[in-house]
């Protein structure tokens, strides 16, 4: 493990960035054969860069993971975008706009990282739109009230951060660098969500009830964001060996629960789990697992909002076609007149 698991998020990111630079300075006696060179670089915690040789399966795994991550950022704009026009104040609206714009930015950093592996942007966009590649199942749940915007920031972004901070140490350079950037920005997202819930929870009884209702609905889907339990996780072991993944799904899920309990106390909101209790022996909280059958159903397309999210994305892509064509035509015309 990397020092104190509960070090503030930004410190963990900074330390990943420092380690990246330190490892780069280390002299590595790498062999001359391709696989040997790759293995040595990964073992020394140095980074594999786009034009280095890499096993084909490593490349494919990364493309799948980074693309899915990018798609999640892009689809993730929808549930929150739903509340931009109805934010309760101009301040909240400006903040939410900035946050949703960040999600777009994160999607773009990640698409750029995926493209360094030899896949084109057009292909990636196509694979999202025709359903060949997935996005995080969490975005298939609806945002019914303003408090959901708070719950998404606190729980969904919180879970995403727990997942993503270790990715700042991923063995693939462009992905690690993109994640360092993403994590630094996510920290604002989580805090704005926490602040929304804290404000509601210390407001009128109706506002507090609204905050509690949002937490009740988002808690288990957030736990499911860490993926299936380790016993059912298919790609984990190889990804660990390649240092793409640093911790197992269950380890990260446990870390998230341990963090949330204390934060929920500060919020004065209840985590909707009657089995939640401190397990002295393990030094962790015991908790109820999310419904993994539900997770599988939502991933397969049967969540509350799957069709809506995909239809919206397709429509946005098609409605934007004339803008892309016009910009292209204008660029072509200007290039011609410049000759």
């Amino acid at each position, binding site marked *: 493990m990397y020092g104190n698991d509960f070090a503030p998020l930004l410190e963990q990111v900074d330390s990943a960035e420092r380690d990246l630079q330190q490892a780069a300075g280390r002299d590595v006696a790498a062999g001359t054969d391709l696989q040997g060179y790759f293995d040595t670089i990964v073992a020394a915690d140095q980074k594999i860069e786009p*034009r280095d040789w890499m096993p084909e399966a490593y490349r494919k795994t990364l493309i799948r993971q980074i693309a899915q991550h990018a798609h999640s950022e892009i689809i993730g704009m929808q549930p929150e975008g739903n509340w931009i026009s109805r934010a309760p104040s101009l301040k909240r609206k400006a903040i939410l706009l900035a946050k949703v714009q960040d999600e777009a*930015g994160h999607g773009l950093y990640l698409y750029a990282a995926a493209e360094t592996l030899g896949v084109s942007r057009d292909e990636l966009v196509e694979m999202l739109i025709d359903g060949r590649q997935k996005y995080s199942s969490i975005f298939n749940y609806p945002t019914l009230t303003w408090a959901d915007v708070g719950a998404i920031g606190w729980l969904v972004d919180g879970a995403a951060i727990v997942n993503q901070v270790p990715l700042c140490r991923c063995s693939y350079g462009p992905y690690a660098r993109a994640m360092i950037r993403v994590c630094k920005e996510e920290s604002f997202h989580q805090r704005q969500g926490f602040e929304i819930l804290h404000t509601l929870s210390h407001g009128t009884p109706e506002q507090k009830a609204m905050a509690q209702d949002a937490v009740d609905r988002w808690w288990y889907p957030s736990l499911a964001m860490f993926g299936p339990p380790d016993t059912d996780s298919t790609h984990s072991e190889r990804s660990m060996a390649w240092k793409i993944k640093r911790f197992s799904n269950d380890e990260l899920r446990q870390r998230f629960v341990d963090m949330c309990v204390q934060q929920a106390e500060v919020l004065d909101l209840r985590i909707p789990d009657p089995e939640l209790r401190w397990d002295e022996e393990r030094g962790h909280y015991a908790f109820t697992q999310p419904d993994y059958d539900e997770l599988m159903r939502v991933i397969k397309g049967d969540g509350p909002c799957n069709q809506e999210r995909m239809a919206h994305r397709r429509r946005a892509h098609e409605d934007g076609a004339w803008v892309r064509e016009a*910009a292209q035509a204008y660029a072509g015309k200007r290039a011609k007149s410049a000759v």
Partner: protein
Amino acid sequence: MLFEVFVRPRRGLSHAHVGSLHAPDAEMALRNARDVYTRRQEGVSIWVVPAAEITASSPDEKDAFFAPAADKVYRHPTFYDVPEGAHHI
């Protein structure tokens, strides 16, 4: 078209590579780069370069390519013994 983006974080520092983006031309690439890579005042100047225009050294040849520098330790000041009593050197 794919552009590589370089940002100068502050006056006095060099531009550094931050990522890439797609745009129909350089002007749009600059505007997009501002929105994608400098939303938090990360830079005071941006370069965008068509990715296809970049010529890079090959990682496969890197040993041979950079080898000529390896045996020339005398290029570093630490190679030299400075006699005691010499100041400002």
